């Protein structure tokens, strides 16, 4: 059986209204009803009744009180019957009996009970016949045909009503189930959503989802924080609303590439966020697909890798240093070895030829080379120790360190007749005292070594406090450094003048110590003959 929808119910209702109006029109404006007219009214009344029945049995998912409906139906039929009787004087008893049959059949009764209904209707009809005036013959055809008809109508309508009730029950059950399922689904979706959001917003990385046109569908809190926007505000926006144009265009191109190739893309790039602080980001973009396998956008995750980059850079620096160290060792340590072995060969020849003068000269070369080698080894050992933190860091006044360093370098300073001057304010250093002493001592030694022919040699040392951090300096008025060589002097075994004493490790050692203390060192010189100033900083040095 077809289940009528609400729309169909309304159609029947309006159809019924039209019939009702036509019926009223005929009854009111035809005072003398002829035989053919009465036939028309009879048919209209039948249709009206059928429409009433249809309305009655339309199953609806929404539960309506059947009693209310039956009462309405009762009043409706009683009103029509009364109206016909008043206007036309016709007896509508037959219709009233039909009404009783249909009414009772609709009262949720069984098929067996419908025979009782048929019997009641028959008895009712017989009673009406008995009161008929003038009374027709008992055995007329119409009467005899009507009696079984009541049984047929009652059993059919009961069956019909049962069917409708069943449908109605199913419909209601279905509606209930659907509602329950909907609630369950919503619940489930909400749970999934809250779980996903919990992950999405609590991962420290930035994450987002974009549709095919690169509009943001979802953005997590770290992303919003990085851009300085509330994540909800970014919905439906594109990269061009956040980033400068060239950058946004590149991101859009990346998205397209990922969607076209279907492959994940990984990019490392420096980028400044809302706080204008530059950081390194590693961005991974992956295409996402709907359940039909079509690309529906991209998912992106960006991670701050500034720390890793810094470590990489540091590692690279360390590696470079190690390379230059091993290079220097292989070259500079081998150099005296070449000298020693070669001159030993010459010495052997001298012994064969009993050439004592030549032998003495060759021995001198060997000794020089051996001395150089031992000095190199000693300083290399020194250098390798800088990286290891051996002594605890302590606070110490700068003036005490300077004085002690000057005393240690006094040999070189006094033998060249160099004047010294310590200037600057009171500053406290924090570090390995022995090492910091070495820094100053090396710088003093270096200054003394490169005085050249200066008639009034002077070394000044102290601290400048004009900048953001204290800058220490050791200044001389010696031979100076050509600007081209200023970076080279801090390298291992680098010597600008082959003739000067030393191994070329002093400044390299000073740089290593300073860098181990979180500072940096550089040399300034206006050129040859104009003196040199070494300046350096130290972390944790403070005034007072």
């Amino acid at each position, binding site marked *: 059986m077809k289940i009528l929808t609400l729309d169909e119910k309304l159609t029947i209702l309006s159809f019924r209204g039209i019939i009702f109006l036509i019926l009223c029109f005929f009854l009111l404006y035809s005072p003398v009803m002829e035989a053919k007219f009465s036939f028309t009214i009879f048919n209209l009344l039948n249709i009206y009744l059928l429409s009433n029945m249809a309305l009655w049995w339309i199953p609806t998912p929404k539960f309506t009180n059947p009693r209310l409906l039956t009462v309405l139906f009762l009043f409706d039929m009683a009103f029509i019957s009364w109206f016909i009787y008043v206007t036309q004087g016709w007896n509508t008893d037959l219709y009233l009996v039909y009404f009783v049959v249909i009414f009772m059949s609709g009262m949720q009764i069984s098929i067996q009970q419908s025979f009782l209904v048929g019997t009641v209707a028959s008895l009712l009809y017989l009673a009406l016949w008995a009161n008929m005036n003038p009374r027709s013959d008992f055995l007329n055809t119409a009467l005899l045909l009507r009696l079984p008809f009541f049984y047929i109508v009652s059993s059919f309508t009961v069956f019909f009503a049962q069917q409708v009730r069943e449908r109605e029950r199913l419909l209601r059950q279905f509606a209930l189930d659907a509602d329950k399922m909907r609630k369950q689904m919503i619940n489930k979706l909400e749970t999934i959503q809250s779980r996903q959001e919990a992950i999405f917003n609590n991962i420290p990385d930035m994450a987002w989802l974009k549709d095919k046109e690169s509009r943001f569908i979802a953005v997590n809190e770290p992303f919003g924080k990085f851009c300085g926007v509330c994540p909800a505000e970014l919905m439906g926006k594109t990269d061009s609303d956040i980033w400068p144009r060239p950058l946004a265009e590149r991101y859009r191109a990346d998205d397209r590439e990922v969607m076209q190739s279907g492959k994940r893309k990984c990019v490392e790039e420096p980028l400044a966020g809302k706080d204008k602080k530059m950081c390194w980001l590693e961005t991974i973009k992956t295409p996402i697909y709907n359940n039909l396998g079509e690309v529906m956008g991209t998912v992106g995750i960006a991670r701050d890798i500034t720390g890793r980059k810094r470590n990489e850079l540091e590692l690279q620096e360390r590696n470079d240093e190690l390379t230059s160290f091993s*290079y220097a060792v*292989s*070259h*500079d340590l*081998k*150099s*005296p*070895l*070449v*000298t020693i*072995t*070669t*001159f*030993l*060969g*010459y010495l*052997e020849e001298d012994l064969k030829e009993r050439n004592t003068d030549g032998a003495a000269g060759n021995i001198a*070369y060997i000794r*020089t*080379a051996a001395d150089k080698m031992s000095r190199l080894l000693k300083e290399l050992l020194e250098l390798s120790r800088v990286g290891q933190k051996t002594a605890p860091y302590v606070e110490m006044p700068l003036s005490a360190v300077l004085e002690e360093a000057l005393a240690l370098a006094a040999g070189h300073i006094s033998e060249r007749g160099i004047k010294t001057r310590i200037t600057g304010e009171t500053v406290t250093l924090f570090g390995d005292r022995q090492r910091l002493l070495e820094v100053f001592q090396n710088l003093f030694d270096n200054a003394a070594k490169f005085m050249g022919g200066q008639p009034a040699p002077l070394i000044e040392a102290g601290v400048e406090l004009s900048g953001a951090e204290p800058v220490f300096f050791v200044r001389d008025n010696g031979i100076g450094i*050509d600007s*081209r*060589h200023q970076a*080279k002097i801090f390298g291992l*075994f*680098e*010597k*600008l*003048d*082959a*003739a000067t004493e030393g191994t070329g490790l002093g400044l390299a050692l000073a740089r290593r110590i300073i860098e181990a203390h979180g500072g940096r060192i550089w040399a300034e010189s206006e050129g040859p003959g104009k003196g040199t100033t070494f300046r350096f900083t130290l972390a944790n040095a403070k005034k007072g």
Partner: protein
Amino acid sequence: MPKDEPVTILLVEDDPAHAEIVRRSLKNFRVANRIAHVKDGQAALDYLFRKGEYSNPETSPRPAIILLDLRLPKVDGLEVLRLIKEDAELIKIPALVLTTSAAESDVDIAYAHGAVSYLVKPVDARQFAGLMEAFCLYGRDQTGSWPKGQAAGIKD
């Protein structure tokens, strides 16, 4: 160039002992030549480009061959090689690297900078002598004018 004219070798070497070894080796093979010895990269460039104290072509003649250490004070050997290569005149002078480093990267980079040969200073007197002999043969080949059998006129 006349056959008996002594040719000039430019030796760029910061270690005086090594310079002495080269000098003695060349003397041993009795090749008649002059050795112009400079102690650092800057001096080598000054010599080649005739600047400062080397501006007189009489006392500082064009070398026929250059023997260059890589690790040099002030300007290093590779830089010297690069500047030689850039000069249309100087590029004609064969530049040989003579150094202690046997590192592959050094060898590659030296050749890339235009060195014609790379000689590693051996840690053995006899080998050093052999190397120097090979160098002399090479030099004779290149210049065709290293008269043998005369005491060399060595200039520092």
